[in-house]
């Protein structure tokens, strides 16, 4: 396989990894903020 094609696959894999990490951690942060607001304590 051409090295440039290999790099495309590698960047795709790392893009998926970091996008997933950002989405998951953001979901935790958003749920914490909402829960604190619901408890009336502010974020």
């Amino acid at each position: 396989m051409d090295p440039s094609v290999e790099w495309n696959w590698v960047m795709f894999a790392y893009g998926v990894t970091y996008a997933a990490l950002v989405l998951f951690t953001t979901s935790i942060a958003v749920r914490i903020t909402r829960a604190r607001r619901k408890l009336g304590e502010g974020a």
Partner: protein
Amino acid sequence: MTSPEQKPSPVWPWIVMAAAGLVTFVAAMTVPPDAVQGQLSRILYVHVPAAWLAYFAFGVTMFSSSMYLWKKDIRWDRMAHASAEVGVFFTALLIGLGMIWGKSTWGVWWTWDARLTLTAIMFFVYLGYLALRRTTDDLEVRAKRAAILGVLAIVQVPLVHFSVVWWRSLHQPPSIIKPEGPDMDASMIATLLIAVVSFTVMYVAMMIKRIELARLEDSILIAEQSSAGPTAGDAVAAPDLGGGV
């Protein structure tokens, strides 16, 4: 005196996670490519740490579930819940990365290989664990049901790990932990070790925030239950069957 909810939510776990992610990326992009797989071998440095954390997270769920069944302390249940959710995330990531690696090397996104199939089953069982927790609002009943499944479900981890040894598999067998020693270059092993440690640090940081969330969710549930008004059934008096006695 401030309650735990009034304390500001710590920011440092997010910073630690970002730093660990950066360390993994720099290490994985600077190591020399593999002689056979070329640049594609770099997927190893996120695929293997994701697999390790899936196993580790479900191990923590099993341990915390056992501790809950023994001590009946709701904090163990929160830890089991948090670790199961983080474990499901890393299992999904593991499967996604495996599919990308599979397509680029085997030519297919998916095959019903023992390793792949058992990993998918493990993913759905732990999704079931998270769904089971939503079947009741009773904290103790929820914790007990989840703890029993959390202990039983761990049997899948050795099944998934040793599937490449026990059955003929398209997936490659272990490259590092095997009787004859690792057959990888020292620079690749060092990079993989950096990635595994960095991802483990990310897991710890995620757990700190996810346990904080579990505590807040429980506080909301308790507050809602204690402030709930009378239900429709409360207006119905029980019939007097004793003939006025």
